[in-house]
């Protein structure tokens, strides 16, 4: 799969193209095996069985990772998953209007998020609850979006974590512009002095998003302006009901070849590999060698959202196969094998996640509804008498309003 040439000559035939582009169950499974076996192109440092494998290129980027650090990454993933499951439950119980599960993508998001330095900026899509966690955005701050009380209550500038973006692809261009700004301000390629003077930006999007014009234009702008931008594509195999084959002939990391910047495919279920590759990519950007594309090869283990029904379009074998590559389990096994974690550690994390979940639930069920006037607040930075008038009109109407009796 590594050379496009192998791909450019589908056999002639009468079959309409549409079918040619449809993956059969066999193809899906084949694709799966290809990955579980890894292959030269997939950067992996921790096997699904929790074994640390060497990688000449990327080992050095995690050489400083201590057992404690690894426990920290494990803790991150467990807590993030627990919060995700709790929110899923809260939706089922009617406390949230909808939830977008990250189940299965914990390693990709924690690995990438922990590679970011405080001065770096991140632009998420709408599934990056794990990255949010690493930026100090509490799960509580995400709830408003899904409960319908706000569009995200954290401060994007203070946390250096932009608001969620739902329109597929939009944030990639916004991130490219932000990264251009970092470069224009001389925050890139500074040698000596304070290394933290250098900054980079990371933008998150999915496999489906790669088809959008905005993502392409982000590639063009970032490459032409040498922007310190890491394109972090979580290929979770599905865009709602559409498999990746619907979006591309080639592995997505190879898309970068056509623009003249590096593209790497990393095992997105391997937190250590994702951390290493992300650190490398961010360093490249901070030194002025951006942009870089990372394809984190992972899997959406739950539905697209709580309103989705995956049984309509994918095989359960597929999920079963991916369960064997669970991102959290392989770290647990590794920690135990090397006796880097004892039962107390796991118990304490259990306790932490119970507390986190309880607090999250407590917070959620007590969230107040926003007042009607909120609808009109902060639409403009400068005064707007027109909107003030509409607000007053509504409030007056609601006031003079004797409970709906007409």
């Amino acid at each position, binding site marked *: 799969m590594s050379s496009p040439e192998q791909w450019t000559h589908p056999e002639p035939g009468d079959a309409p193209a*549409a079918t040619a582009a449809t993956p059969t169950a066999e193809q899906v499974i084949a694709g799966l095996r290809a990955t579980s076996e890894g292959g030269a192109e997939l950067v992996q440092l921790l096997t699904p069985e929790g074994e640390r494998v060497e990688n000449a290129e990327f080992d050095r980027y995690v050489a400083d990772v201590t057992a404690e650090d690894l426990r920290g990454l494990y803790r991150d993933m467990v807590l993030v998953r627990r919060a995700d499951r709790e929110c899923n439950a809260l939706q089922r119980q009617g406390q949230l209007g909808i939830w977008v599960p990250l189940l299965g993508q914990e390693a990709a998001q924690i690995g990438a998020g922990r590679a970011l330095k405080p001065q770096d900026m991140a632009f998420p899509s709408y599934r990056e609850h794990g990255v949010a966690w690493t930026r100090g955005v509490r799960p509580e701050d995400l709830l408003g979006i899904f409960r319908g009380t706000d569009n995200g209550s954290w401060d994007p500038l203070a946390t250096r974590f932009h608001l969620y973006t739902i329109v597929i692809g939009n944030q990639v261009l916004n991130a490219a512009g932000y990264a251009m700004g970092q470069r224009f301000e001389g925050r890139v390629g500074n040698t000596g002095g304070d290394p933290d003077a250098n900054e980079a930006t990371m933008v998150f999007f999915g496999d489906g998003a790669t088809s959008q*014009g905005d993502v392409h234009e982000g590639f063009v702008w970032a490459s032409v302006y040498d922007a310190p931008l890491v394109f972090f594509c979580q290929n979770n195999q599905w865009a709602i009901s559409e498999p990746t084959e619907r979006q591309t002939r080639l592995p997505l990391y190879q898309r970068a070849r056509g623009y003249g910047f590096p593209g790497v495919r990393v095992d997105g279920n391997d937190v250590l590999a994702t951390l290493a590759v992300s650190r490398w990519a961010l360093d490249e950007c901070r030194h002025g060698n951006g942009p870089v594309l990372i394809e984190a090869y992972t899997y959406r283990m739950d539905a697209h959202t709580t309103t989705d029904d995956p049984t309509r379009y994918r095989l359960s074998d597929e999920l079963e196969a991916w369960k064997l590559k669970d991102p959290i389990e392989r770290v647990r096994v590794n920690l135990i094998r090397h006796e880097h974690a004892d039962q107390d550690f796991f118990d304490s994390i259990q306790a932490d996640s119970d507390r986190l979940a309880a607090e999250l639930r407590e917070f959620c069920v007590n969230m107040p*509804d926003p007042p009607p006037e*909120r609808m009109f607040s902060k639409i403009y930075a400068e005064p707007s008498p*027109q909107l003030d008038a509409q607000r007053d009109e509504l409030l007056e109407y609601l006031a003079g309003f004797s409970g709906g009796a007409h």
Partner: protein
Amino acid sequence: MATPVLNKTSGSTSAAQTTTLGKSLNMGLRAAMEADPRVIVMGEDVGKLGGVFRITDGLQKDFGEHRVLDTPLAESGIIGTAVGLAIRGFRPVCEIQFDGFVFPGFDQIVSQVAKLHYRSQGKVKLPMVIRIPFGGGIGAVEHHSESPEAYFAHTAGLRVVACSNAVDAYWMIQQAIQCDDPVLFFEPKRRYYEKGQLDPDATPYPLFSSRVLRKGDAATLVTYGPMVKTCLDAAGAAAEEGRSLEVIDLRVLSPMDLAPVFESVRRTGRLIVVSEAPRETSLSSEVAARVQEECFYSLEAPVLRVTGYDTPYPPSKLEEEFLPDLDRVLHAVDRSLAW
């Protein structure tokens, strides 16, 4: 006095069956695909999944993957390739997953879809339909509850329609597909589950015509899409207070068919335009502007508008306040009558 005429279609109602607006669309699409092999359906998740609202449910299974296309994820791509397919002689029906996601395809719609027939002086026809579930009231997140119809109504060369009930849904989608002009087809997603009595043997009402759904003489309510039910409910409530309101469903949003509205206002002397969309430079503006010109001497009160506010669509906990409802409509009726 107040005669509900909703769901009445000329012709026998013998074979009438109960259906929902969403199911009617599915049946209508199926009928259109059976009637014409050039009709193809394309969009995100319209195949195996049958669309996020299941409007295309079962179509790929029955018509195959080259007549029901799960496309790559890009709206300009969906519209732009549909244009090419239409030039080739197909009759594409594109699904835009939610109202807020039509904008990446806006350029192709405004620059090519709307203009190609004119640019070629009729040598190239573009018989394509762009289906857009629109409006709020379903407790969704951002970009999933918008009412972008005004953008298209202002665009010369497009035909813009909105269905409001299960019976119209079944006929209008087929009529839109048969139309040789590009049609923007707006579906009131919050009404997908509203029931209606459908008689597939009945003679359909013309596509590009507004329609009086309820006769009345005290005042006229003009609306479309999701607000039609709201207005009919309001008219029902008003009737109990002895006020008979006429309710007109625009159905065609551009080019508008306002003759029935003028005729009505000349009788009632009062008009309230009801729409979910923000008010500024909207369809409600156009209706008011036209009516005040055509019915200047008949109006006993200014044309009033009950609409969404000039704000981005709010977080869903606030949508009840944002969306016009029965009370806001009747409140406007009171204001009009008190003028």
